[in-house]
């Protein structure tokens, strides 16, 4: 299991710390993951070196099996690696859709050959993946997708359009849901993989209200997917897709639905932009109430995350509390953005320019980008449907086969 002797966590921690010291380029200390930036410039030498070092150890995907390039470690060791990276101000250079959702799914559903071909490059960070799921006519109702895959013997020919393809402009490969049987809805969907670097694939970034383009439209005109890259049985892709979406949801919930909330607390911001009264209370009593309400909500969410983890460890199976996490976390995050904007007043509405501090410009962009949290990864309404139908057992009268 572990690549250290015995099972002594402190010995492992020492090993990790020494390795990080020896391999993490000091100039990258405290710097964010370059993959998080949308305008991905060519990676620097140091960034490349760090990626190669972590990738060769498999420590970017520490719990994945060693046979496919992962670290082969347990959860405790993975946590130690995370802590030691954090301590050194080092980001995990291995990430993206391949790590968050595709890799775990392929490890469950892929053939040995598929795993051997596709997992190691993910572990090394050599290959970036994008998700070909949503279409203009198939968002919440994903199974209504229409992108066609025609069987051409040793390959499929793919024609159609995907939308909201995150990072398609940087992706090397695509895991894609395609229609292989038009006579059935859910049972006519297959899960295929193909390279983005082929003539039949065209990518167009979509500009969003926050000004950035994290998502794309992706057009397929006679794009080619090799038969060996069909994951699972023909027309059996929907089951695999559902499992992948669970991984996606888990990844989003962990970060509260949209990545960590850095920055100053609302209270600190309120002290600066709104002021305090003679007793040291936020000077606007109405705002103060809403801030404390928000703090209480956030605290109980954190407590629930802890409780869900302890319960999942202690009892059999995941805690029921996990189903609420995406909705609770995302609405909390959005409220944080709204309150930040409100606290900053006009200073919180700057689009660009030196009349505004970076933190203030970030507030606007963050607030706009945050509107997506309750839409993507299973909208708030879909999550509520899942809670009400699957957890609470309320009847499902929507069309299903």
């Amino acid at each position, binding site marked *: 299991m572990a690549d250290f002797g015995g099972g002594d966590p402190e010995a492992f921690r020492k090993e990790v710390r020494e390795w990080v010291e020896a391999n993490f380029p000091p100039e990258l200390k405290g710097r964010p993951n370059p993959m998080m930036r949308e305008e991905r410039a060519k990676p620097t030498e140091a960034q490349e070196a760090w990626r190669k070092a972590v990738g060769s150890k498999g420590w970017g995907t520490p719990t994945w099996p060693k046979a496919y390039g992962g670290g082969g470690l347990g959860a405790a060791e993975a946590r130690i690696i995370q802590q030691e990276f954090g301590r050194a101000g080092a980001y995990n250079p291995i990430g993206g859709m391949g790590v968050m959702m595709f890799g775990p799914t392929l490890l469950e559903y892929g053939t040995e050959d598929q795993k051997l071909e596709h997992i190691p490059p993910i572990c090394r960070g050599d290959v970036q993946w994008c998700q070909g799921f949503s279409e203009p006519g198939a968002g919440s109702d994903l199974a209504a997708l229409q992108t066609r895959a025609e069987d051409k013997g040793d390959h499929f020919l793919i024609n159609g359009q995907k939308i909201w393809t995150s990072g398609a402009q940087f992706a090397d490969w695509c895991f894609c849901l395609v229609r292989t049987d038009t006579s059935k809805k859910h049972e006519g969907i297959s899960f295929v993989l193909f390279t983005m670097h082929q003539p039949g694939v065209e990518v167009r970034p979509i500009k969003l209200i926050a000004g950035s383009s994290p998502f794309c439209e992706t057009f397929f005109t006679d794009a080619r997917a090799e038969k060996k890259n069909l994951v699972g049985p023909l027309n059996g892709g929907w089951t695999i897709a559902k499992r992948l979406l669970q991984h996606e949801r888990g990844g989003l919930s962990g970060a509260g639905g949209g990545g960590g909330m850095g920055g100053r607390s609302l*209270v600190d911001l*309120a*002290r600066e932009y709104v002021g*305090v009264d003679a007793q*040291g*209370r*936020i000077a606007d009593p109405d705002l*103060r*109430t809403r*801030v*404390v*309400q928000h*703090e*209480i*909500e956030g*605290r*109980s*969410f954190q*407590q*629930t995350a*802890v*409780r869900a983890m*302890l*319960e999942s*460890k*202690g*009892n059999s199976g995941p805690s*029921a*509390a996990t189903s*609420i996490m995406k*909705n*609770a976390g995302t609405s909390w995050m959005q409220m944080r953005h709204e309150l930040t904007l409100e606290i900053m007043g006009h200073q919180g509405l700057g689009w660009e320019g030196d009349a505004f501090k970076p933190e203030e410009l970030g507030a606007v962009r963050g607030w706009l980008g945050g509107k997506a949290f309750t839409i993507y990864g299973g909208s708030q*309404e879909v*999550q*509520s*449907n899942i*809670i*009400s*139908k699957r*957890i*609470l*057992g*309320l*009847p*499902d*009268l929507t069309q299903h086969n």
Partner: protein
Amino acid sequence: MAVLNEEQSMLRDAAKSWTQEKSPVTAFRKMRDSGVEIGYDVNAWNEMAEMGWAGVIIPEEYGGSAFGYLSIGLILEELGRTLTASPLIASGVGAASALVLGGSDAQKSEWLPKIADGSVVGALAVDEGPHHAPEKVALAATKSGAGYSLSGTKTFVIEGLAANLLVVSARTSGKPGDKDGITLFLVPADARGVSRKRLALADSRGAANITFDKVEVDADAVLGAADKGWDVLEKTLDRVRAALAAEMLGAANQAFETTLDYLKVRVQFGQVIGSFQALQHRAAKMFTDLELARSAVEAALQAIDADSPDVPELVSLSKAKMGDVFHLVSNEMVQMHGGIGMTDAHDAGFYLKRARAAEAAFGSQSYHRDRYARINGY
């Protein structure tokens, strides 16, 4: 639900089976219909005491089992589910905590064993107006010989009519609003000069206004140190608040589950009303909120057991959050049941009334949001 040890699991299971067999909501309805002034069934209380529930936070040397506050919270959650009325919070948590935290050996020996076996019911007499404001004590305790003379009024004393022992907050110096100058007194409820007026509240539970007319007490009636009672008072109140939040958690969960069951059986427009998405989403919201509230309630009880410095903050968090959620769920219970939810024959009205009474007791959501903010410096 928190991961429980074996003792805690057993306590919870015992409470579950007792309430299901011996104290379902029909028992509450029967108590209410009987008009019994103390607001609970004495026989039920005796059974609870026999099971040791009144001694759960009392040390073994004084006749208790010292299982702690999460344990009493587990029992109260089950009692809350069926709206079981009893002085467990006022006596087994309130008076008991005050004595454990601030009592002399003599005071503990005199009162705790009887609280533990249920033969003495204790109650906290703290408020003096329509809103909980423990630092605004005005009831005066003036020196009288070697002891004190108490004069003033206490309002909305929970289980005040049934109580044998009153733990009274009085002012020995300073002015209302000062935390310094508050003294806690142990006053037998039948002391000369104490008069009690029953309050018939909407939730049918026991409460009284109590007037103190030159009530003479000895020096040994002081709980803790004179003028320095605030610390014990606040700690005691936090334990009561956390216990009450646990009871609210049970009641809110049962209110939700009863409503959910209704959504699955009531048919209108040719289908079960639980198939309507608007109701599904409201149900999902309540489920989400109940999970968040559970985390806050359990964290507060665990913090008390760990004697954490975060107790005041976590308790205010739990009372505020639980209050909001019970408020929502109790409203939705009536609304989602439609017309029948408005009938007295249905239980929805009981949960609604209980919710508001519990919200008001020992600090409303508003009080605790303000306290949470003040503790955090804003």
